């Protein structure tokens, strides 16, 4: 269900032939007919199967590791331990073509001595069959001596805590200071302080990590792998000790990513085994391997103290943010930075103090996940906004209206947003769409919640992000797009096709996209950070426009008019206002070919570049641009059992410009479902670092019975930095959902649950506490009336 609301264009209205239409995605038919090969579907003659032996303990010393019995098992081809890799370390920094100095986070590939998390790899096995490899695992004899571990980031910061990383376990700190924080609080009539907590979350993509590697006749290590980032080839080359041009990554259509395939997963193991065995090697993670084999979403504790005037004006915000980095650094510093920048949300807060730290523990390591720290911040600021509204007895939307950032306002870092900020319209439309309130029904109480957000699209500008794409026209009038971009299921490749055909005036059946090969397709950067459409879409636009320019010049010559009078659309070339003067597109291309006119272009798109944020104040530019919107939720809470059902889920986002509305809706609907799981049912539970939820029986993502039909209200300000004014929607669609649900639950039952997920048990306990008249606020701190 979609309402595309009336557009208030900030760019002149133009008629598009392909853009903004719900065209069938280029990848859909192959997937619907089972013809699409995923990375796990490739095989090679002579291939061996690999397995990873993992530590069953979270904090231990490896005393003994004896692999001789496994090596002796018939059919075992290779067993690797840290002993065979004396000089090898794996980089874990943010991937891609950044040109920035790498963080000092290189880590052991296999456990040398110290085990830092449950599931850390001890050994790699390659065998003639999966059965043999599994059997060989059981023949590896090892002894682990438990070491004291630390499993809480606040404890890990204390002096004397067991050391997991560095001198003090703190892997990153960020501050943002702006305005007069003391003055701001002094000017406040009311100060509210609360702590909001979030949990470990698993990406739960349906396709576990998998790849196939072989060393070719030139000594190049080729890896066909399910990844969001083919540009890991550089880190993989560094890890195995070869030149960067000796590793080639070929992606495949990816069976879901959400940030979980942003870091290296199977690639280094595959590369090492392929080199050691000299044979093609296939490694497929089991679901349990997958749960143990990639970083989780960070649990955060966010303590928010807000000063407000009686009229609802926010005078100051002091936010203290602590994230659990787990056992290794990975992308924790970046996720933390996103959280710090997003801390005040879509609100104008001129007196701001943010102090954020990420701390290592012996929990599973944490890294990228859709929303990337900004989602956790939203869970804090949007719950706090509701608490402020309640304290002031002010309408929740009205309080927000009085504080929203407006177009042209500076954000937390002092930078201004280059695009339109339509938060207010989005929130109002989503809220209105909820309709009439429902009356209580037996033990059921209905409640509704809203959450607005600010979420960046595009990478941190100090990373100096670029993306390349190639567009060419064949002599029969068909179009080819080549780009390294990985397609992780959102239709990234198809969107590029739609952009190219709009500009070149052909139809979807006349375009093919070749993507995701680090040696052959132009490097496009990562499919992360809601950047693929923005960055690579622009690169395709630039390339297609260059080709179009040459085609138009030739057409103008043929029709003896000027290029501005030529239209390219629907595989036809015509003179504007004179449709009689026209020819097939293919005919024009043939003319160009005959004249030796270049019919291809390789283009690079550069995001805005900046320096790093000022380390003392956090001021400067952080991201190219931001998406704004809101999500409204209606819940039904069974006050006896604590069960929460989502009755209505309504999203309203300004996406700038839909390239493909069906794909936009798909992102929104999927984000709504993930956000629902985040709020209600999902939690990776670690007890003393040990994973207690190793399968989909324990880790509960929403099913078809849990998710309501999602209503999408899509606004188009055409003000974004993406092609045709598009903004990004991949991450934004998820960010406001969980806090909207949390707020709706409070609306229903009158008491807030400060730590996600909101389980039936927590609801019942909160209601019991409320009934008992005891202290109901489980959040630290309290309300201070002044």
């Amino acid at each position, binding site marked *: 269900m979609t309402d595309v609301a009336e557009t208030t264009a900030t760019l002149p209205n133009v008629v598009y032939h392909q853009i903004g239409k719900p065209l069938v995605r280029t990848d859909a038919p192959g997937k619907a007919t*089972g013809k699409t090969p995923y990375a*796990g579907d490739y095989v090679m003659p002579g291939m061996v199967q690999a397995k990873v032996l993992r530590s069953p303990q979270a904090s231990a010393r490896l005393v003994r590791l004896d692999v001789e019995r496994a090596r002796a098992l018939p059919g075992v081809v290779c067993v690797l331990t840290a002993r065979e890799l004396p000089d090898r370390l794996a980089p874990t920094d943010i991937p891609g073509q950044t040109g920035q100095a790498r963080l000092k986070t290189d880590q052991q590939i296999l456990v040398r001595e110290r085990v830092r998390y449950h599931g850390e790899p001890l050994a790699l096995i390659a065998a003639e069959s999966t059965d043999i490899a599994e059997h060989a695992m059981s023949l590896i004899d090892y002894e682990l001596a438990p070491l004291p571990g630390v499993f809480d980031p606040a404890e890990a910061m204390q002096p004397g805590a067991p050391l997991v990383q560095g001198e003090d376990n703190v892997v990153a700190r960020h501050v943002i200071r702006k305005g007069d924080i003391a003055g701001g609080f002094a000017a406040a009539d009311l100060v509210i302080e609360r702590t909001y907590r979030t949990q470990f979350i698993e990406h739960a993509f349906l396709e576990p990590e998998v790849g196939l590697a072989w060393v070719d006749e030139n000594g190049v290590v080729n890896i066909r792998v399910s990844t969001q980032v083919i540009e890991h080839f550089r880190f993989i080359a560094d890890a195995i000790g070869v030149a960067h041009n000796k590793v080639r990554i070929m992606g495949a259509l990816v069976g879901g990513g959400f940030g979980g395939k942003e870091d290296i997963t199977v690639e280094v193991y595959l590369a090492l085994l392929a080199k050691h065995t000299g044979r093609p090697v296939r490694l497929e993670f089991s679901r349990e391997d997958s749960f143990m084999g990639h970083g989780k979403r960070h649990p955060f504790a966010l303590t928010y103290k807000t000063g407000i005037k009686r009229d609802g004006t926010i005078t100051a915000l002091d936010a203290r943010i602590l994230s659990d980095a787990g056992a290794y650094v990975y992308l924790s510093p970046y996720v933390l930075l996103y959280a710090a920048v997003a801390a005040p949300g879509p609100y104008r807060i001129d007196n701001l103090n943010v102090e954020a730290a990420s701390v290592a523990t012996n929990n599973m390591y944490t890294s990228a996940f859709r929303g990337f720290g900004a989602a956790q911040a939203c869970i804090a600021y949007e719950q706090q906004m509701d608490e402020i509204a309640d304290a002031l007895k002010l309408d929740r939307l009205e309080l927000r209206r009085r504080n929203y950032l407006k177009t042209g306002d500076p954000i937390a870092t002092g930078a201004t947003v280059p695009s339109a900020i339509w938060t207010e319209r989005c929130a109002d439309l989503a809220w209105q769409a909820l309709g009439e309130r429902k009356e209580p029904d037996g033990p059921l109480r209905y409640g509704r919640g809203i959450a607005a957000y600010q979420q960046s699209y595009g990478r941190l500008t100090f990373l100096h992000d670029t993306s390349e794409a190639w567009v060419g026209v064949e002599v029969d009038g068909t179009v080819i797009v080549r780009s390294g971009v990985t397609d992780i*299921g959102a239709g990234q490749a198809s969107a590029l096709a739609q952009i190219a055909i709009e500009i070149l005036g052909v139809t979807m059946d006349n375009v093919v996209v070749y993507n995701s090969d680090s040696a052959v397709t132009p490097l496009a950067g990562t499919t992360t950070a809601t950047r693929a459409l923005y960055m690579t879409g622009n690169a395709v636009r630039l390339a297609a426009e260059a080709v179009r320019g040459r085609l138009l010049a030739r057409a103008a010559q043929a029709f003896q008019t000027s290029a501005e009078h030529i239209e390219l659309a629907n595989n036809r070339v015509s003179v504007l206002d004179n449709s009689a003067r026209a020819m097939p597109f293919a005919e024009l291309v043939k003319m160009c070919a005959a004249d030796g006119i270049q019919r291809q272009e390789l283009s690079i798109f550069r995001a805005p570049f900046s320096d790093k944020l000022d380390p003392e104040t956090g001021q400067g530019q952080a991201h190219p641009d931001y998406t704004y919107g809101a999500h409204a939720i209606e819940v039904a809470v069974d006050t006896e059992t604590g069960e929460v059902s989502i009755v209505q889920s309504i999203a309203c986002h300004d996406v700038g410009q839909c390239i493909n509305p069906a794909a936009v809706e*798909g992102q929104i609907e*999927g984000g709504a*479902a993930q956000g629902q799981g985040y709020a209600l049912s999902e939690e990776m539970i670690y007890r003393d670092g040990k994973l207690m939820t190793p399968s989909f029986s324990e880790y509960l993502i929403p099913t078809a019975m849990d998710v309501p039909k999602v209503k999408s209200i899509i606004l188009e300000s055409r003000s974004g930095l993406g092609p045709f004014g598009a903004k990004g929607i991949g991450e934004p669609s998820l960010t406001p959902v969980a806090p909207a649900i949390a707020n709706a639950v409070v609306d229903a039952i009158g008491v807030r649950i400060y730590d996600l997920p909101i389980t039936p048990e927590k609801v019942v306990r909160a209601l019991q506490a409320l009934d008992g008249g005891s202290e109901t606020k489980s959040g630290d701190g309290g309300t201070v009336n002044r």
Partner: protein
Amino acid sequence: MASDRAITLRVNGRSITTAVPAHRTLLEALRDAGFVDVKRGCEKGDCGACAVLIDGVAIDACLTLAWTAEGRTIVTAAGLGKDELHPLQTSFIEKGAIQCGYCTPGLLIAAHSLLAMSPDPSEDEMRFELSGNLCRCTGYSKVFEAVKDAATKMAAREAHHD
């Protein structure tokens, strides 16, 4: 240890003979035989990605031993359409019900099995019968639209044939 036994499986109208041990699951056997549209997602019946039809009924291939499937008619998602696409496939394509696509073969099979039991399913019935197929991308909304659309198409086709 149990030894391999040659079994003949009838899959998507083809007969394949393969020598496998007793513990080989139908999922493993089908994938090894090249039917890689049957997806491995959890290997414990939690996700539905490996669903196939056995004699028209959807089951998880990961929980089925290959030997027990001998003599049965097995259909995978790739075998749903014969000369043309199955209406479910067309509807999934047209309604945008596919994102990463990894759960799609299993969903198509579960939906096929559902429509065999109930040609005009209510929304609750669709939710119930598709709840064993986890999807992390779509939020299911467009999947329901697609199944409903396919049911309509199939009913029209039936009426046309009558």
